[in-house]
C-alpha cells in the first residue's frame, strides 16, 4: 500500500462524510480535507499509480503524476481550501456535498491517465455542479439548472463518442497528445470545447453560474472551465484552431460583459474572456505559451473566486446582484470592497498581482512567435479586461450612484471575509514572488515579468483604459436588460422549431392514434365476436377479388348481415384449421423477418 491516495478519493469519500457530522466538527472536516489533500499532493512521486484492469481490455489509470497535472492539482486543492472556509457557515448539506464531489471529480479528471477514467469523472463533475445550481432553489435557478445539465450531457456524449471512435481507430485509451487529425479527435475537441465555454457553446456558463447560490458560484467559477483548459493543454497543444477560438472567447467575453447588468453575470462573461487567454496560449503551443496558460489558470482561479466571493457577499447581505440596484456600497462594506479591488487589480494584470506575472507570458509568447494579429488582439483584450472587470464591476457595485443600501458588513459571516482575505493575499503573493509559481510549471521558466519596459507599458495600457472608461462613462450606464446569447437557440429558437413541426407531427400522431387505438382494437374486437364467421368472410373476400362471382358477393352480404349472431361452437376440424392457418402465417412472417430484415 502506497503512502498516498488519489486526491479525488480524499474529496469524494470526504464528501460522503459531510452529512454524518454537524456543527464545529463539520467545519473542521471541510477545511481539513483540502489540507490533507495538499500534503498528500506533496507526497506523490511522478509516474502512474492506481492502475486497474477493467473488463479485461481496458486499463483505468487513476493517478498520472507529472508537472502539468500537478500545477492544476495544487490550485484545485488551494481553491477547495478557500471555498471550504467561505462555506464554513453554510447549513445546506447538499450544497457542501456537491461542492466537494465537484472539486474531487475535477481532481479525478486532472489525474486521469486514460480517457475512460477522464470521462467518468467528467460526468460526476457535470452532475455535482448541476446540484450547485439547483441549490439556489428559485424558479430561475431550477430552469437554468435543467438547461445546464442538458448542455453538459450533450457535451459528455460528444466526448464519449469521440473517445470510442478514437479507441476504435488507434486501439489506445491513453489520455495524451492527440491533436486535431480527424473525426474522432474533432468530436473529443467539441466535447471539451463545451466545458471550456468556447462560443457558440458557451451560453450555459453565463446562463447558469449567476443563478447559483452565493457559495455555488464561487466553486463553479473555478473548476469546469479549468479542467477543460487542462485537458486541452494535454491533448491539443499547438492546435492553430484553438488560437483563434481563444481570440473569439476573449473578445466575446468583453462585449457581453460590457452590456450585462447582473454583476455576477458580468464576472461570468469575464471567465469566458480569461479562459480565452489560456486557450490562445494552448493554441500557440510553445513552452512559454503552455507555461503561460497553466500559470494563468492558477492565477485566474484565485482572483475569479475572490471576485465571485465579493459579489456573493453583496448578494448575501442585500439579496441583489443587478448593477442598476446596487451602488454606493463602499460606505458600509469596505472590506469586501478592498478584497474585491485586489481581485479586480489582479484580473487586470496590475504589477504586483498574479495577473501581471502570468497572463503576460501568453501575450509574450504571441509576440515571440511574431503572430502580429494575435498579439494585437490580446493586447486590445488586456485593455478591455480592465474596462469590464477591473473597473466596471467595482465601480457600479461599490461606487457610482448611491443606492441607499447600508448593509452591515458585521452581519457577514466572518469566515467569508477570511476566505476573501486569504485569496487576496495569494493574488498579491504570486504577483510579488512569481518564482514559487514558476517552479511548479510544466516547463523550465526563463521569463522575467518585472522589467522596466513591461511595467511602464502595462501601466500605460491600463491607466489610459481607465481614462477611456471615465471619459465614456455616460455610454456605460447600466440598463435593466438581459443580453441575448446563444442560449437563445434553446430558450427561444426551440419554440419556433416546435411551432413549425407541430402541424405535421400532430397529423401523424393523430393518424397513428386512430390506427392503433381505434381501428386495430375495433377490428380485433369484431373478429373475437365470432372468429369462425369472420374468417369465412375474409376467405370469401379474398376469393371474390379473384373471381368476381355474384354468388360469393351475396354470400358475403348474408354472412355480414348475420354477423355475429350466428355464432356457434367451432367444430374440431374448423378449430384445427384456424390454428394451423394462424400458425402458418406466424411461421411465414417469422421467416420473412429473419431472412430479409434481420
Amino acid at each position: 500500500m502506497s503512502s498516498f491516495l488519489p486526491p479525488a478519493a480524499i474529496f469524494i469519500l470526504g464528501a460522503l462524510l459531510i452529512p454524518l457530522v454537524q456543527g464545529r466538527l463539520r467545519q473542521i472536516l471541510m477545511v481539513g480535507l483540502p489540507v490533507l489533500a495538499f500534503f498528500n499532493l506533496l507526497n506523490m512521486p511522478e509516474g502512474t499509480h492506481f492502475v486497474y484492469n477493467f473488463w479485461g481490455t481496458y486499463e483505468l489509470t487513476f493517478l498520472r503524476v507529472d508537472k502539468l497535472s500537478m500545477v492544476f492539482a495544487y490550485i484545485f486543492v488551494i481553491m477547495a481550501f478557500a471555498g471550504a472556509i467561505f462555506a464554513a457557515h453554510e447549513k445546506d448539506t447538499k450544497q457542501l456535498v456537491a461542492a466537494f464531489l465537484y472539486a474531487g471529480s475535477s481532481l479525478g479528471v486532472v489525474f486521469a491517465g486514460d480517457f475512460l477514467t477522464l470521462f467518468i469523472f467528467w460526468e460526476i463533475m457535470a452532475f455535482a455542479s448541476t446540484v450547485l445550481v439547483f441549490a439556489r432553489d428559485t424558479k430561475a435557478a431550477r430552469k437554468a439548472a435543467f438547461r445546464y445539465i442538458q448542455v453538459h450531457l450533450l457535451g459528455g456524449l460528444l466526448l464519449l463518442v469521440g473517445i470510442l471512435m478514437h479507441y476504435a481507430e488507434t486501439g489506445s485509451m491513453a489520455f495524451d497528445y492527440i491533436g486535431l487529425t480527424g473525426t474522432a479527435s474533432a468530436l473529443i475537441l467539441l466535447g471539451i470545447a463545451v466545458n471550456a465555454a468556447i462560443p457558440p457553446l458557451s451560453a450555459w456558463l453565463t446562463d447558469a453560474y449567476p443563478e447559483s447560490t452565493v457559495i455555488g458560484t464561487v466553486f463553479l467559477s473555478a473548476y469546469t472551465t479549468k479542467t477543460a483548459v487542462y485537458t486541452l493543454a494535454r491533448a491539443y497543444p499547438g492546435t492553430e484552431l484553438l488560437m483563434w477560438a481563444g481570440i473569439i472567447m476573449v473578445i466575446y467575453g468583453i462585449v457581453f460583459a460590457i452590456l450585462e447588468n447582473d454583476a455576477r453575470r458580468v464576472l461570468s462573461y469575464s471567465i469566458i474572456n480569461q479562459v480565452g487567454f489560456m486557450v490562445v496560449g494552448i493554441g500557440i503551443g510553445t513552452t512559454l505559451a503552455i507555461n503561460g496558460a497553466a500559470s494563468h489558470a492558477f492565477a485566474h482561479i484565485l482572483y475569479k473566486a475572490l471576485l465571485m466571493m465579493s459579489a456573493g457577499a453583496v448578494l448575501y447581505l442585500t439579496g441583489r446582484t443587478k448593477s442598476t440596484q446596487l451602488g454606493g456600497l463602499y460606505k458600509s462594506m469596505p472590506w469586501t470592497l478592498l478584497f474585491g479591488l485586489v481581485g479586480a487589480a489582479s484580473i487586470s494584470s496590475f504589477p504586483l498581482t498574479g495577473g501581471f506575472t502570468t497572463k503576460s507570458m501568453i501575450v509574450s509568447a504571441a509576440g515571440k512567435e511574431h503572430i502580429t494579429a494575435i498579439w494585437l488582439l490580446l493586447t486590445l483584450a488586456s485593455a478591455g479586461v480592465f474596462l469590464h472587470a477591473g473597473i466596471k464591476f467595482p465601480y457600479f457595485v461599490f461606487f457610482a450612484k448611491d443606492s441607499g443600501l447600508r448593509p452591515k458588513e458585521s452581519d457577514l459571516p466572518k469566515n467569508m471575509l477570511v476566505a476573501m482575505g486569504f485569496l487576496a493575499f495569494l493574488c498579491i503573493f504570486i504577483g510579488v514572488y512569481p518564482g514559487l509559481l514558476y517552479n511548479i510549471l510544466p516547463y523550465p521558466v526563463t521569463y522575467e515579468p518585472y522589467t522596466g519596459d513591461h511595467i511602464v507599458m502595462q501601466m500605460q495600457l491600463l491607466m489610459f483604459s481607465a481614462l477611456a472608461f471615465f471619459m465614456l462613462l455616460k455610454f456605460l450606464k447600466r440598463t435593466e436588460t438581459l443580453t441575448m446569447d446563444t442560449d437563445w437557440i434553446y430558450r427561444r429558437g426551440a419554440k419556433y422549431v416546435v411551432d413549425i413541426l407541430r402541424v405535421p407531427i400532430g397529423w401523424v400522431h393523430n393518424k397513428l392514434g386512430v390506427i392503433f387505438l381505434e381501428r386495430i382494437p375495433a377490428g380485433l374486437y369484431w373478429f373475437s365476436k365470432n372468429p369462425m364467421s369472420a374468417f369465412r368472410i375474409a376467405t370469401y373476400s379474398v376469393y371474390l377479388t379473384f373471381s368476381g362471382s355474384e354468388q360469393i358477393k351475396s354470400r358475403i352480404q348474408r354472412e355480414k348481415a348475420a354477423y355475429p349472431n350466428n355464432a356457434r361452437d367451432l367444430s374440431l376440424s374448423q378449430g384445427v384449421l384456424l390454428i394451423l392457418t394462424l400458425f402458418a402465417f406466424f411461421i411465414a412472417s417469422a421467416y420473412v423477418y429473419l431472412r430479409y430484415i434481420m
Partner: protein
Amino acid sequence: MNKIIEFFERPQVGKMVKYTFYGSLVFLLIVEFFIEKHPYFSFAALPAFYAVYGFISCALIIAVSKILGKVWLQKGEDYYE
C-alpha cells in the same frame, strides 16, 4: 476603516485623487523615454504606443458593444418569460 472612508469622502481629497490620476498619466508618458525597450514588433516601440492603443481599444470596444447591444443583443428582462 471608517476613518479611511471619511478621508476619501472629503471633496478636496477627491480632487487630489483626480489630479494624481492625471499626473500619473503624464508621468507614464514621460518615463517611457528613460527605459530600455525590447519590443517584439517595431511599431510597439513608437512613443506612447500602449497609451494610444489602450485608449483606442477601449473606445472601440465600448462603441462596438453599445451598437451591438442596441440593435440586436439587449432585450427586456422578461424576454425569456
